[in-house]
């Protein structure tokens, strides 16, 4: 089975974390899994919109789009972690309010990164009337580096990636704003996959999450639970599509 992973981390990191997980999943389901790389998020979007992946780990907005385009179905999601976008600035930049960012350039990973970009830009615009000039820099690490190097005044990311950043960088930055929380990234499956195998995959991932949590925490998905369409239906009413790229 072909497996896709949203490239919000470096390919090397994704390969390191996903390979042992897929090996274990393959043993439990008696099925082989092949990881397909994506150079960047636009390519990833193109891939899942074309139904390239049998199994795919993606952000909630991507899932909404993928479900609509190709009929992808949710399998599992993190049961303990919610997705929350954050806006970071340098501690010594003298910015204490998001209003100071109006009309300024802000770094985001990619247009359709849910927490870091879509949700953040939507809230800034809809809830606070702040329009920023987006600069897309591909990855969350690049966002934090742009802010650290003062190439942009602020950057959008998520709590998890910010906490995983090197102290040398994160110590110089601070979180200026947090978005509302939404359910975290699901693993979705293409409808062409046999429902029996889909159920087996779902059970196996939940089992692995309980018996060998280190494997699922790495991808990352903490305490996997069954994911449903209802978990992500609320995203449809936020107006995210205004800031999304096709």
């Amino acid at each position, binding site marked *: 089975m072909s497996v896709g992973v949203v490239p919000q981390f470096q390919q090397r990191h994704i390969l390191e974390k996903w390979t042992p997980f897929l090996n274990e999943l393959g043993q439990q389901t008696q099925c082989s899994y092949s990881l397909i790389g994506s150079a960047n998020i636009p390519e990833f979007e193109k891939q899942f919109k074309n139904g390239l992946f049998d199994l795919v780990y993606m952000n909630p907005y991507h899932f909404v789009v993928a479900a609509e385009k190709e009929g992808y179905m949710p399998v599992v999601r993190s049961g303990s972690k919610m997705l929350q976008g954050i806006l970071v600035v340098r501690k010594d930049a003298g910015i204490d309010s998001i209003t100071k960012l109006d009309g300024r350039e802000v770094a985001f990973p990619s247009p359709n990164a849910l927490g870091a970009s879509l949700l953040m830009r939507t809230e800034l615009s809809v809830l606070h009337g702040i329009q920023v000039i987006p600069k897309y820099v*591909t990855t969350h*690490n690049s966002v934090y580096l742009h802010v650290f190097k003062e*190439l942009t005044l602020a950057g959008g990311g998520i709590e998890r990636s910010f906490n995983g950043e090197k102290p040398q960088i994160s110590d110089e930055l601070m979180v200026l704003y947090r978005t509302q929380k939404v359910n975290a990234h699901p693993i979705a499956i293409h409808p062409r996959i046999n429902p029996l195998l889909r159920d087996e995959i779902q059970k196996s991932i939940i089992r692995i999450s309980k018996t060998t949590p280190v494997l699922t925490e790495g991808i990352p998905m903490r305490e996997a639970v069954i994911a449903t369409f209802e978990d992500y239906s609320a995203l449809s009413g936020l107006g995210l599509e205004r800031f999304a790229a096709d």
Partner: protein
Amino acid sequence: MRMALRDTISIKLFLPVILGNLIFSAFVYFSWLPSAIKISVESVAVQVDRTLGSVAEGVVPLLLQNQLSNIYDTLDLVKQGNPSWIDLQVFNAQGQSLYPLVAKEIPESNFLVRALNREIMVGDKRIGKIVLVHDMTALSHDFHQQIDYLLSIFIGVFSFLLLVMIFILRSVIIVPVTALTKVAKQLKFGNFAAPLPLERHDEIGLLIACFRDSRDALLKSRNELVSARDEADAANMAKSNFLANMSHELRTPMTGVLGITDLLLEDATSKSERKLLHAIHQSGRRLLSTLNDVLDISKIEAGGLELDIVQVDIERNISDMVDLFQPIAEKKEDILGVRET
């Protein structure tokens, strides 16, 4: 005779070799090595410049997509793979630092530490700049270490071979020549039996053999000379003994002649008889004296001459001499006389 150290074969042979070795080592260290390091450094600098060009090309797509994290991952790996790249910095078109996290000041270039600049271009458009500080001190240090190692090996092997050669020279030449010298000194004191060094089948062996033959020939010649001398001494002794015996035998009748002459002188009446008898007496005495002289010569040759210190009557001796030769002078009508002055 003692020999100065500078005159020994060892010094004459090995001093030039040691000096040559030192000159060679000094040449390698102070002339060849700096030149070789310079060539290597320039060669490495050219390679590094090319590599930097490739890195700059590789960074282009990452810069265009603002993939700063990938730039960090890539350049971190590049730096990790090139320990001599002590600093690598990337700037955007506006001159803002992109890499590394904390940019250090670019040091001034010197021979071993060089700052290389490359513009990052897309077509004619300049999108950034990459700066590399390349430190080739380690390369120079490694070069020095290698040469130090090679020179150490060379000097070690050379010293060992020198010791071996000194040992061989000593055992093959110096020891036998010194022994031969001692034998030659013994020869000076007449010792022909001093033991020679062992015979060998090389040049030194030939020298020893020639020396032995010469010594044997000299000994033979010496023995012949001694034998000839002894024979001559014996012949001389026989001659002396004969003279001594003959003189002794002649003295006895001469003593008789003198006694009878004394008796005749007592009875002679005429003056002419007395004068003739006196001449006979004087001639006899002279002959006796000559015989005594012959005896003295025999004693000299026999080593038995003894001198008697006695008073001599010079006037009487002269008068005797005149009386002895007066008749001969008169016969030849010469005038013989004594005049006091």
